[in-house]
C-alpha cells in the first residue's frame, strides 16, 4: 500500500523530468515482475540439459521425468507449507529464525504421540496446538517484551531445539519404532501415500494453504495491515492499526504452519528427528528473498515466494543427482548470495543494516 504510493509519486516526478528515465523505470518494473519465473525456467533447463546424455527427455531418471517431478514436489511439501506464512511475517517487518527448530520439535512430538498409540486426528490437533503455542511464545517475546526479532527467535531456536533433543531418549538419535513399540504403518498416510497424480495428501494441503495465504495477502485486511506495519510501523499505528496484534498473529500463523510442516516431515520419514528441521529458516529466507520480498518489510508476494521455494528445491534435489552431497552447503550459500544481490538490485528502497 505504502510502496505503491511511493512508486506512483516517483513515476510522476520522473514523468515531468524526463521521458527516457520513465521508460527504463517501466522496464525495471517488468523485470521485477517476471524475473523469478525466468530464473526458475533457467534452472529447470540447466538441470534437464545436464543429464541429457544419459537418458531421453522426460524419460526415466531424467530431471523432468514424472517420477522425478513428483519426488521433487513431495520433498518440497514442508517448505511450500511454511514459506507462505513466513512471507507474510517478513512483509510485516519481522523475522522468525526458529521455524526450523519449531518444525523439528513438532515432528518429534507428533511421532512420539503416534508411537504411544494416539489416534492420528488427536495427535494432529495436539501438534498443531503446540505449533500455535510456539508461535505465541515468539510473538510474546518480540511484541510484548520488545526484544529484536532476530535475537528473540535465535534464542527460541535454541530453546525449541533443546526441548526436542531432550524429548528424544538418551542413546537414540530420533523417535522411531523400538523392540517393544512399533511405529504404526499409517504414519505414512499423510505425506507418503499417493492420493492423486502420485502425490500425497500433504501436498494438496500445502496447495490449499498457499491458495488461502495468497488470498489473505491480496484480499483481506490482514494482508493490507501486514504491508502497512512493515512499510512504516509508526504511521500504521497512528492510523489506528494495532501493529502489535498484527505481528503477533503472524507469528502464531508461522508457528501453526511450522507444526503442519513438521507433521508432514515426520509422516514422510516415519521418524521424529530432532534435527530434521535444521536449516529450514535459511531455506525460507532464500525463498522469500528470491521472491522479491523486501527484507525490511512493506512489500512482497506469497505467490512469488512459492516460485522461490521451488527454485531452492530444484537446486538441492537437482544438484544431488549431479554432484556429491558435500557441495550442498556451498550451493545453498551461493544461491542465498545471488538471491540477496538480485533482491538488492530490484528493490531500490534502502534497507537498514
Amino acid at each position: 500500500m505504502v510502496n505503491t504510493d511511493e512508486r506512483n509519486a516517483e513515476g510522476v516526478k520522473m514523468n515531468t523530468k524526463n521521458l527516457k528515465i520513465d521508460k527504463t523505470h517501466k522496464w525495471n518494473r517488468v523485470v521485477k515482475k517476471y524475473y523469478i519465473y525466468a530464473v526458475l525456467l533457467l534452472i529447470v533447463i540447466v538441470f534437464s540439459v545436464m543429464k541429457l546424455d544419459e537418458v531421453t527427455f522426460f524419460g526415466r531418471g531424467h530431471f523432468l521425468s514424472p517420477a522425478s517431478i513428483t519426488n521433487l514436489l513431495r520433498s518440497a511439501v514442508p517448505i511450500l507449507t511454511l514459506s507462505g506464512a513466513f512471507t507474510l511475517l517478513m512483509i510485516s517487518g519481522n523475522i522468525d529464525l526458529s521455524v526450523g527448530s519449531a518444525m523439528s520439535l513438532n515432528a518429534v512430538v507428533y511421532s512420539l504421540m503416534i508411537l504411544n498409540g494416539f489416534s492420528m486426528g488427536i495427535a494432529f490437533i495436539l501438534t498443531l496446538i503446540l505449533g500455535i503455542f510456539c508461535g505465541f511464545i515468539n510473538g510474546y517475546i518480540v511484541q510484548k517484551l520488545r526484544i529484536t526479532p532476530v535475537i528473540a527467535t535465535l534464542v527460541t531456536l535454541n530453546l525449541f531445539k533443546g526441548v526436542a533433543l531432550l524429548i528424544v531418549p538418551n542413546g537414540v538419535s530420533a523417535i522411531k519404532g523400538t523392540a517393544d513399540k512399533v511405529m504404526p504403518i499409517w504414519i505414512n498416510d499423510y505425506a507418503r501415500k499417493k492420493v492423486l497424480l502420485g502425490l500425497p495428501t500433504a501436498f494438496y494441503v500445502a496447495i490449499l494453504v498457499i491458495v488461502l495465504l495468497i488470498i489473505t495477502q491480496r484480499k483481506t485486511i490482514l494482508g493490507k495491515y501486514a504491508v502497512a506495519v512493515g512499510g512504516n510501523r509508526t504511521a500504521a499505528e497512528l492510523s489506528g492499526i494495532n501493529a502489535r496484534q498484527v505481528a503477533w498473529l503472524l507469528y502464531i500463523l508461522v508457528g501453526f504452519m511450522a507444526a503442519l510442516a513438521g507433521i508432514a516431515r515426520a509422516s514422510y520419514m516415519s521418524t521424529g528427528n530432532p534435527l530434521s528441521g535444521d536449516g529450514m529458516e535459511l531455506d525460507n529466507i532464500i525463498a522469500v528473498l528470491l521472491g522479491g520480498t523486501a527484507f525490511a518489510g512493506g512489500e512482497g508476494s506469497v505467490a512469488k515466494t512459492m516460485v522461490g521455494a521451488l527454485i531452492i528445491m530444484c537446486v538441492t534435489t537437482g544438484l544431488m543427482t549431479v554432484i556429491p552431497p558435500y557441495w550442498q552447503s556451498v550451493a545453498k550459500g551461493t544461491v542465498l548470495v545471488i538471491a540477496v544481490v538480485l533482491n538488492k538490485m530490484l528493490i531500490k528502497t534502502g534497507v537498514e543494516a
Partner: protein
Amino acid sequence: MGTKTRLLKRADSSMSNESFISLFMISVLVILFGIACAIVPNFYLPMNMLNLIMNYWYIIILGIGVTFLLVTGNFDMSVGGVIAMTGVLSVYFSQSAVVLKNPLAVGLGLPYGVAVGLALLCALAVGAVNAFFIVKLKVPSIIVTLGTMMLARGVGQVVTLGAQRNTSLPDIFGVIGNASIPGTPIKVSVLIMVGLLIIAVVIEKTTIFGRRTYLIGANREAARLSGIRVERHLTTLFLTSALLAGITGILMASEFKAGISNRATGFEFDALVICLLGGTNINGGFGSVLGTVVGALVLGVVTSAATGMVLSPDWQFFLKGTVTFLAILAQRYALDRRKG
C-alpha cells in the same frame, strides 16, 4: 532552568547505563557462581576455576570481534564457518603433496608458516565478502553472514569431501595448539587469548578508533556527518572479526591435528550469547570487551555446572537459550526501570 540543574545533578549522581549493566552482570555471575558452588560438589576448587577460564579461550577470542561489531549494530554469524574453513584449509595446505591412494591424505605440501598465512588470507576473504555486501550494498548483516557461514563451512566440506583430513601432516602442525607454558598447564592458546584481549581493551578504552566504534553504533548518520569514514571503519571490523575467527580455527586444527569440516558448529551463537550476557546492547551503541569476558564466565559457570550435575549434553541448548533469554530480559527490565 530548574529542570536543567536537576537533570545535571541526576547525571552526576548516577552512573552511566554502561557501568550499571556491567555491575549488574557481574552480580549475576557472582550469584550463579554461588548457586553452582552450593549444588555441585567441589565446584569452588581453584583448579576448576582455572579450567573454566582456560576452556573458553576460543569463545573469548571470537567474542572480541563480535563485540566490536555488535557495538556498531552489526552481527557476524559467519565465525563458526570461518573456524571450520580455516582449520581445514591450514591442514590441506600443509599436508604433503606426495600422491597417495587416499585423496584425503594429499595436500599442497607447503611449509607450515605459509599454510597458516594462506588460510588466514582465506578467512580475510570471507570477511571481505561480508563487508562488501553489508557495507557497500547495505544488505542486513544477519542474512549476509548466515550465507557466508554456509559458504565457508561448505568450502571446508568440499575440501574434506564431507569427512576430515588428519593424515600425512608435518610434526610442526600440532605444536602451537598443544604447547603449554613450561611448568604450568596453561596453554599457548590461552596466552594468545589474553594478549588479544589486552590489545582489544586498549583499543576500546583509549584509542580514537574505539570511540568512533561507539559513535557509529549510537547514531550512524551523525557519525558519518561528523566526518567518520563509517564504511571503512565497518570494513575493518568485519575483516578483524574474520581474522580472529581464522586464528581460532588454526589453533583448534592444530590442537586436534586434524581439519574437521563440522567443527565449531554453533560457535556463532555462543559468541553472540556471551556478548549479550556481557551487557552489549543488541541494537548497538554500548557494550564492552571486558563485559564479554564476564559473559563468557557466566556461560562457563552454567555449562560446567550442568556437566557437574551430570546432565546429558542435550541440556546445553536449553540452558544456553534460557540463560540468554533471562539475561536479555533482565537488561531490558533494568534499563526500563532506570529510565522510568
